[in-house]
């Protein structure tokens, strides 16, 4: 059996390498790859980050209805909602609106809004040039804020999409930031 020992250790070393590699695969491949795929394919209606507005022609012949919806995640006491529930826009045009928020608590709080677009395949054609969701939003107790949103609907939006719903879910991240200022992905 002694003659086999080296061969056995080589097999073990190879297998152990696979184990380590697969563990690392989860963190360095699966997680980032998922994020990339989400943005590319609009999984969960995720939209890209800030869009650098290129000058594109406005397609006056087409009208897209944009609906805004808002919801609060668990335990989030803010009053939060769109200032208008829907608007009609032309592809290529820059549009703006505001969401209204009010912190009814006595303490100041920090919120993070997460956008999601439906239908999800419209997500990649929905560009935000400015959005309150890009940053965390602090708000003092009892105060009200107007939170701006500016967006462009891409001209390449598939012809069969006539309505796009943009949803914001607002999360209370006050504790999260307090607990650990270091690790945030």
């Amino acid at each position, binding site marked *: 059996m002694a003659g086999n020992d080296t061969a056995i250790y080589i097999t073990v070393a190879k297998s152990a390498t696979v184990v380590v590699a697969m563990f690392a695969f989860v963190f360095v491949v699966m997680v980032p790859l998922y994020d990339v795929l989400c943005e590319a394919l609009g999984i*969960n*209606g*995720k939209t890209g980050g800030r869009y650098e507005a290129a000058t594109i022609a406005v397609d006056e012949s087409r009208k897209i209805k944009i*609906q805004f*919806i808002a*919801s*609060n*995640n*668990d*335990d*989030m*006491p803010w009053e939060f909602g769109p200032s*208008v*529930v*829907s608007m009609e826009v032309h592809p290529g045009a820059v549009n703006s609106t505001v969401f209204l928020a009010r912190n*009814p*608590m*006595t303490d100041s709080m920090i919120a993070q809004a*997460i956008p*999601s*677009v*439906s*239908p*999800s395949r419209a997500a990649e054609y929905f560009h935000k040039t400015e959005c309150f969701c890009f940053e965390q939003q602090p708000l003092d107790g*009892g105060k009200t804020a107007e939170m701006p949103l500016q967006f462009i609907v891409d001209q390449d939006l598939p012809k*069969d*999409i*006539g*309505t796009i*719903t943009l*949803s914001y*879910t607002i*999360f*209370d991240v006050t*504790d999260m930031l307090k607990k650990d200022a270091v690790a945030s992905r």
Partner: protein
Amino acid sequence: MSSKAKWLKSLALGPVLAMLATAAGFAWADDSKVNQVNMPVGVTELGATIYDLHMLIFWICVVIGVLVFGVMFYSIWAHRKSRGVTPSQFHESTKVEIAWTVVPFFILLFMAVPATSTLIEIYDTSDADMDIVVTGYQWKWKYEYLQDDGQNVSYFSNLRTSQDEIYNAEAKGEHYLLEVDEAVVVPVNKKVRLLITANDVIHAWWVPELAVKKDAIPGFVNETWFKAEKEGIYRGQCAELCGKDHGFMPIVVRVVSEEEYSEWLGGKQKEAAEIAELMAQTFSLDELVARGEEVYNRNCLACHGAAGEGGVGTAIAASPIATGELDGHLDVGVNGVPGTAMQAFGGQLNDVDMAAVITFQRNAFGNNMGDMVQPVDVYNYKKGS
């Protein structure tokens, strides 16, 4: 029939009946849902398509199954040692092996065609007549009807079955566990687009007869649709494990004529206006307690107990909150207790109900505070706190 006799019967007849039912092509399925053995055909065109596809795949499986098991049982009967057969020693045949690789492949291709086209139909949410935002909560659903004029109608839909029925203190009603205080109401023959999301954990909205199931994911919105072609009441349940009361958050959809729908919607909008009006009113202690008891039973009882004795939540009876300062009590009710199962009810209950339930809690279960909260107090508290 006594329950003992009943289960003896099912012990004896169960398997036989079950097999017969399958063999008869699910012939049992009639209007009664009791002991239904197959998927409902449903009341949407898409549901019927899915049902047909389901039956097609099922029958293909049955045919293959009969052939395969037929060969096997013939072999078991014919090629057994007790008949004195000598075993053959063949152990390969390339032709046969290629055949049974290729033939199944073509059968799969045949299945893939209708499967693909049906899936494309399911995904087509365009040109909807109306939109409803469905939000899953632990453990209830919220529905919000999006209106172009901004006057959205929104309400919660809670389980109506009483705890007494669930804990066997009372006979169970016909729609045990499948009944809610406020159903989703939609017009017949209209394409309804559902925008589904969740407030806390993942839930799933499932109504078999509408052939709709979609996950509700916190932070993100999923969409799906249905177009019911028959008026009636259709029942479903949450399909994704969402914690303790996952089994107790049913869905009821009432499909009505278009006139009835507009009437209902108008009623809802009027109700919202009335609530606003009620907020300006002053109620007596008795009125508040009576209304509060109903609100309590719907929203609080599951966690705090029928006698305020507590459970998942803390006890209400003799609780320092319910017998302490009014503001503290309002704070817990409106904002919840972060980090615990106590949710913020400020956004879930209107101010009238909030005032009523707090008054009730302060004057029930042996708590004799004698004080009360008026809707306007809740309103001011929310604005001013």
